[in-house]
């Protein structure tokens, strides 16, 4: 995890880092990842699940239940004329 990698990851994650931060995180994450190397000793397992307990076939019926107060949600998002305002596209 060198500084170049930290900058790349920061861009992907939409974080602006100062040079000082880049240097600091690079050192810290390098330590952390070294500590993670112990995982290479763990045996590979055939299959795996996304969670710790089996959650299988949980499905919802295709019945419309309109949300009772969409205006409340629009207010929370500071919508204007119903539209949610986003930043510039360029």
């Amino acid at each position, binding site marked *: 995890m060198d500084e170049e990698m930290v900058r790349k*990851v920061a861009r992907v994650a939409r974080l602006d*880092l100062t040079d000082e931060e880049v240097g600091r995180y690079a050192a810290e994450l390098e330590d952390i990842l070294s500590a993670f190397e112990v*995982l290479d000793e763990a045996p*590979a*397992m055939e299959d795996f699940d996304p969670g*710790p307990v089996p*959650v299988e076939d949980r499905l919802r019926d295709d019945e419309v239940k309109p949300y009772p107060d969409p205006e409340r949600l629009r207010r*929370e998002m500071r919508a204007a004329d119903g539209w949610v305002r986003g930043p510039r596209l360029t």
Partner: protein
Amino acid sequence: MTGKDLATTVRLADERYRMFAEKLEDPLAYEGGHSFHFSAKDNLCSVEFQARAGSRILEGYNPPFDATAIKRLKEAGGLLIGKTNMDEFGFGSFGTNSDIGVPLNPFDTTRCCGGSSGGAGAAASVLDGHLSIGVSTGGSISCPASFCGVVGLVPTYGRVSRWGLIDYGNSLDKIGLLASSSDMIARYLPVISGPDALDPTSQVQPPLSIEGDVGSVAIPEEALAGLSDGVRKAFEEAVGRLEGMGVEVRRVAMPELRFALPAYYILATAEASTNLARYCGMRYGDIVEETDLGFNELFSQVRSKDLGNEAKRRILLGTFCRMVGLRDRYYIKALQVRKLVIQAYERQFREVDAVLTPTMPFVAPRLDEVEKMSALEAYHADFLTVPPNLAGLPHISLPCAYIDGLPAGMQLVAPHWEEGRLLSLAARWEREFQYRRPEGGA
């Protein structure tokens, strides 16, 4: 106590220990014939308070719904008196990673409460008869329970609906309870448990039983390395007391436990880095309305300004672990290791009723000590609480010692869905071992 008295008590406690991010201010709100009072960690949504999850990026987020756990406690006659302080989004073991408020340890206010449910631990410790809802991802209920001298129960993953919980790691987050004795927890765990249509992962649980007991425990040798002298000694005394109660104690080896910490941090930060992507100054919390910036610039600017140090570190780590060319070695491997760790526990549970370890390797550190810790040292503090959290196993932290006046806890881990036996043992333990309340406790 009258509503007015409770209001005063809460205000004074908050002034002294800073456990609340937000609380009921109007004394009249405390009248109303509620049968008990509770608080919720600030990453749980309720309609009457903001939900900031310890972060400036959610400043001004007023949820339009109650978390299911909160809704159920309200329906059972509970008064939600406030939202407790926490490490930002759950990122921390000391309660110190938040600009909104850092709670102080009721046993010694120069020390931290633990984290990330630090405020929850303080509230349960200080306020008489209070129930705190906390959330555990890697140890965030157990740690403050240990440091603040209260009982902390983390149910099985999926036992309590996570609807209304602001996510840290979706395969790791568990809503649980802290209180100064286990009977409060035994009474209210059934209230917050049970399937919820709004959370599919809550729909696979068998019925909750408060029955069962712990007749035998296994202590993995891996849990006895890296402890402070005080904790090691205190733990062995507690073990002796358990044996005196008739609990059979076996010493075992669980070598897989050493993989749990890295696997946990990989999965937790990978999931967190995606959960936090939505916080970008556009739709919730800190919304930036006027800007000349392009969307990528704006998103980056808001996130960098509002997210704390630890949040950024975990986002970087988590993003890294799931990137192209890296995700097999880190993310996929971590998923496999979780299964490995679960199987290691299951092997123990064929022989014993619970696995026993100290909860934390030391007592609550001083705030200046926390400041000096490196990231890796801080992560390593979780090495005892992470394994059951990674595995989604129910576990309880019980105060078992006072080391120079500071509380220390012991942790019991049970098989999936077997919360009952933990609460039974807790009740028995409380007849044998007297918990102390902090001076200035109300």
